[in-house]
């Protein structure tokens, strides 16, 4: 857990439930990067869409937080909201766009960096693109694991499935990433 997240205690959440804007700004500042990251990766790298989704998530959170009863961890509850919003947005966009016509992230294979120090950046971009191509059921557990740092139990709670399902989906997600990016299995790329 990041240091800033430790500031979000029951008192802050209670203040948010009472409509306190300062408390809500604290919540926003604490989670905005993580929520935005998931939104970007879930929208195939389209930052404009991610802006909208992030805004909608926090807008919804502002009212929905009154329904938070503390039955689960606040982060679990929040990420459930985020995951549902990303899935809704994806469904909405699939109705608007022909199949496969999502906004693709830049393909790192298109550019040929000359400097070795760009190799890692190249890997990051390739991974982002490959993540965007995974099915949501494989992509979201990966984002919750690597962006949010959640445990398997926490991911299971957010996704509403069993821990075994999380393990299985992460396994398949990792395999698909490895297959799509097998050309990166080269020590020169990693600077080892």
């Amino acid at each position, binding site marked *: 857990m990041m240091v*800033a997240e430790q500031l979000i205690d029951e008192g802050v959440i209670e203040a948010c439930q009472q409509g306190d804007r300062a408390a809500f700004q604290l919540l926003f500042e604490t989670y905005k990067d993580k929520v935005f990251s998931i939104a970007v990766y879930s929208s195939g790298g389209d930052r404009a869409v991610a802006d909208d989704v992030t*805004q909608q998530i926090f807008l919804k959170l502002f009212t929905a937080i009154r329904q938070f009863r503390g039955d689960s961890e606040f982060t679990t509850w929040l990420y459930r909201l985020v995951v549902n919003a990303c899935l809704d947005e994806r469904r909405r966009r699939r109705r608007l766009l022909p199949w496969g016509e999502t906004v693709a992230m830049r393909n790192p294979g298109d550019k040929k960096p000359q400097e070795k120090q760009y190799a890692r950046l190249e890997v990051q971009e390739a991974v982002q693109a490959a993540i965007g191509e995974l099915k949501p059921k494989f992509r979201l557990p990966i984002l919750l694991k690597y962006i949010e740092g959640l445990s398997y139990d926490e991911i299971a709670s957010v996704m509403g499935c069993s821990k075994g399902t999380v393990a299985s989906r992460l396994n398949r997600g990792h395999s698909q990433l490895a297959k799509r990016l097998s050309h990166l299995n080269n020590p020169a790329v990693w600077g080892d």
Partner: protein
Amino acid sequence: MFFGHVTKDISAYCHGELSSEDSKQFAEHIISCARCRSKFEEVKLGIKLAEQLPQLSAPDHLWRDLEPLLAKQTSSVRSGSGFWTWRVQLAAAAAVLLIAGVGGLWLYNNSRTPAIGTAKSAWQVKRLDGTPRIGSEGISNNGELGVGEWLETDGRSRAQIAVSSIGNVEIDENTRVRLLETHATEHRLELARGKMSARIWAPPRLFFVDTPSAVAADLGCAYTLEVDDHGASLLHVTSGWVALELKDRESMVPAGAACETRPGIGPGTPYFEDSPAAFREALKKIDFDNDSTGLSLLLDQARPRDTLTLWHLLARVNGADRVRVYDKMAAFVPPPPGVTREGVLQLDQQMLETWRHALESTWMGGGGSKVPKPIADAYFKVKNGLSRRLKEMAPK
């Protein structure tokens, strides 16, 4: 839990989500199962790739855009009390400052080591004797060794480190170690001085120890490693296999064998610990003094299982000396079909590997080494991969 293949548990294993007992069973299975090991490498690559995913920064305008929308909704929500308002305003101000600082630090760290969890991971340390120190702090019973931190023992203290969920390392007196890296696909310790004993139950190449003169790569094993004040090291393997590497020089050391290393040279040639003293002395001169005058004595004293040493020596001696080593090996275990004298003398990798396969039973049949064949197979598959990677990395 494990009745067959373990491919479905690979991610859980790498993320430390299996129980200790299940982790051990997983590692034991994967070392002996080629199919699962192949899948393990694939998933490990996937994890390594996923670890590169950066957390992005939300644009600054988001809050500005959001505020007016919130204002519309606020009218329908009861305003916060004065107490909460000033309290959370203070907290919000502090948080913004804190997030800016933490965010900056995160971005700095992330640009250097993108692997998530690397920087915040720590290993548990248990005091065994005296007062070991982590950094400048002495530990009374238990402590945590973070990435980049040194653990040091004096003449009267010892400690035990839990290596994530894959094993443990005992740190002897007068030893200095540092945790360099720990994440799902790699755990790395630096042994600057002193002695450590490692017991690892993990698939090959998850645990590494950097010394001043070589890197010890665990292949599922138990061993002790000592580093003296000059940076030279001595490895004793008690179970499984360990690879010692430095640049293009590598030695594979099975249970019952040992290997020395020297700064600037790297790993010497492995030898079985029950080999004659004169044999070992002659080998040391060949390895570190570039003096092959003792080769005749070494060959005279060699036993069939010392083909472990001779097989490594083939690539480390030249000309007539290589011919003599070949002849001695061929007298013990004739090269199998497809392996020619000319090919071996020209260090044909395929032929060397084929002959090595034929030699394995000789290395493992002796009194000291009881390494199961599946583990040896796993080890040599790793070795082949390592050789390929070293070739790929070599300057053209």
